[in-house]
């Protein structure tokens, strides 16, 4: 019993030490998902796009764009994302293998999303669809970072001013016309780098970033792990 407590304490201390290192010494998994709707309980994930930030730079070769096969594609989604059933048939992967792949990549990385309630909600519900090992990770929400920053600067941002393109515009980042999951993941990654460059005039640690706009979450599955 005491041994287990000490082990837990060690893990906790180790985790803390890691978090106080400069941000560049961590790897970031920047994710965007396209879904059939806004409610994780009712809607499905259609596609996932991601890219990694390592050594302080976006590693473009790590970009991925995956379609999931079980999603029902309605006309509205086709209109917005230009994805059709045949795309899903051709490029779709089986849920289970996609999730295993995702878990493998996310391990030891910091998740980065724009608007965490939605993306975390969908990740949680994805984890419910399959028997999956649990996964704990730190995450950063670029929208929360932006809201904190504007609040500190005492700037009033109007309605829609925290949407991804609006946030990017404030940093002079280019306007990307496409809104597929991969382009939005790229756009989020660039936004994060811009936000970090403007972080109170110093290089922040991961801890500072998470405190300002992030948290820690554990994904687990109700299914029994096989």
């Amino acid at each position, binding site marked *: 019993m005491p041994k287990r407590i000490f082990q837990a304490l060690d893990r906790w201390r180790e985790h803390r030490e890691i978090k106080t290192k400069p941000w560049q010494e961590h790897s970031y998994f920047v994710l965007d998902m396209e879904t059939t709707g806004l409610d994780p309980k009712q809607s499905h994930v259609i596609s996932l796009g991601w*890219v990694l930030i390592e*050594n*302080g*730079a*976006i*590693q*473009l*070769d*790590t*970009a*991925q*764009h995956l379609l999931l096969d079980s999603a029902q594609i309605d006309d509205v989604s086709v209109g917005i994302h230009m994805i059709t059933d045949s795309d899903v048939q051709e490029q779709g992967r089986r849920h289970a293998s996609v999730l295993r792949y995702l878990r493998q990549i996310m391990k030891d990385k910091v998740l980065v999303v724009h608007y965490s309630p939605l993306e975390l909600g969908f990740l949680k519900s994805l984890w419910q669809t399959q028997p999956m090992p649990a996964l704990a990770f730190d995450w950063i929400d670029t929208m929360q970072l932006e809201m904190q920053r504007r609040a500190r600067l005492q700037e009033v941002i109007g309605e829609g001013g925290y949407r991804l393109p609006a946030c990017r515009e404030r*940093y*002079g*980042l*280019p306007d*990307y016309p*496409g809104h*597929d999951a*991969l*382009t939005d993941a*790229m756009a989020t*990654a*660039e936004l994060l*780098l*811009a936000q*970090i*460059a*403007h972080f109170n005039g110093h290089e922040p640690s991961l801890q500072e970033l998470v405190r300002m706009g992030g948290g820690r979450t554990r994904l687990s599955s109700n299914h029994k792990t096989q």
Partner: protein
Amino acid sequence: MAAIDIPEVLKFIDSTPPFSGLTHTQQKHLLGGVELTYARQGEKMNLEGSHATLHLIRRGACEIRSAKGGLVDKLADGDCFGIATVLEQNPDGLQVVVLEDSLIYRFQKSGFQQLLQESEEFALFFAHTRSSRLRKLSRAHATDLAAPALQLSTPISQIMSRNLITAAAHDTVQQAAATMTEARVSSILVLQEQRLVGIVTDRDLRSRVLAVGASADLPLSEIMTREPASIDARNLVMHAQTLMSEKNIHHLPVTEGQNIPVGMITAADLLRHQELSPLLLINQINRQTDITSLREVCQQLNTLIVNLILTDMKTTDIGNVIAAISDSLTRRIIELGMDRYGPAPLPFQFLVFGSQARKDQSLGSDQDNGMMFSRQPNAEESQYFAKLSQFVCDGLAQCGIRTCPGDIMASNPKWRMTQEGWQQAFANWIEASSPSALLNASIFFDIRCVYGDDTGVQQLLQNMQARVAKSSLFLATLARAATVSKPPIGFFRSFLLESSGEHKNQLDLKHQGLALINDLARIYGLGCKRYHVGTKERLEQAAREKLMGLDIARNLMDAWDELNELRLQAQRQHWQNTGEPSAYLDPSELSSLERKHLKSTFAIIADGQTAALQRYARGYA
């Protein structure tokens, strides 16, 4: 997945030369391992180790600077840097400084090197970029080291003499002369409670004492020049030079704080420090005794102007220097004319118009001038002035100031009038108010006296201002006429579309840019209570009298400076390449950042035109 499969990446690479000319396979290869970084304004890019590789700006702006900090190149979206680090380990120590927050692609060195081997076109592009930057670098070095550059930007304190020879105002002329002789100097400063109150020079002793038979016992206060021009010790040699040329003086006291003298600069000091200077040129001009030798002296004028441009002297200062030289030249030729045809039978003024009046001439400006008489000359006197003015205009033309294509010259009898005649002429322009007539006459509203008593010209100007104030229709017509020509805002779009054809894609910075600002400033300047002739002074005055918003005035002044600088640089380049000045700018010489600047400059002019129309032409449309 490879970087090239990201739609936004592919789209950018496909639209950016030289990458757009590569095959898909080559692009994919080059993009292998590419990173995207974000650099913040003011950051110095790390170009060492694994970062010593090709960089491409996706969005933002950077500057390449020499090891000593001289500007080599400005870069923006789609421009590359880091080439020298790949090809030659950056022998010149070039640095890249971020001007605006930038998103930057950083390529893998190996992929870039391999592609240089594979694609001749690709390699040529970078060889060309590299050599053009080397050219700019050598220019940056040249301006670091070139004699005139170094000397003009030397602080005054380095060349002034600190050995002050001073006297008190109640000392006698005799005592002062003795002190000067003993110290072997040609001037003495007159102090009162340590402050500078006057100056006496060798020449003053001759002309104000000896020549008029005055007593050597007079106190200095009787013969000194009171409140002489002086310059603060923090200024540069070029400022001293400009001041001395403008005032035509040879002794300039250097002061600190509340007019406390700390040193002295003489023309001789400056000449010792310089082979070719405005002051030397003016000195030489004043010493020549015939047109042939004047012409030879003036052949240095363009070289001098080019040197001034190279020293990055402020454009307004360059304008002042050129005006001082043209004025001296004009005066000297008038004197030579009077040597030949005898003294003038009646007092007259020699007037200059347009750019010489505004003091914004550049290489290859032409002459616009006229004469004003104190009374109506009789037939014989008219004959004299016809000969004199012909001599002057021909002389100026021989010395490199071209004759006016519109024949606005003193040699044209139409532009030799009495003060009343000129007054009537202005009255006609102001009251007739036909737009085309006005536009042709607008040059006359920029007027300055370079020879003769200025009082008559001041009266003429007052009379003109009063007339303008009574006729609001005049300013309305002037505003409408002056805003007919619009700045070429869409120019760069068409430049991108059409890339052949003579002059089609060349920008006339004078007529499509500067002249439009001059026209705007003239409208406001004439609407002001106080007359100024220079464009920037007019804009300033208009803002002061609240005829124009301060921001518009400032923007227009900045725009004017920027266009003027571009014009001078373009002229210098053209002159150095071909020996001919040209006001045309080839936009392909501009970086995309400079193009962006130029575009916003034109937009500022358009805003100014709208404001002028609203202020002056509303209700007259």
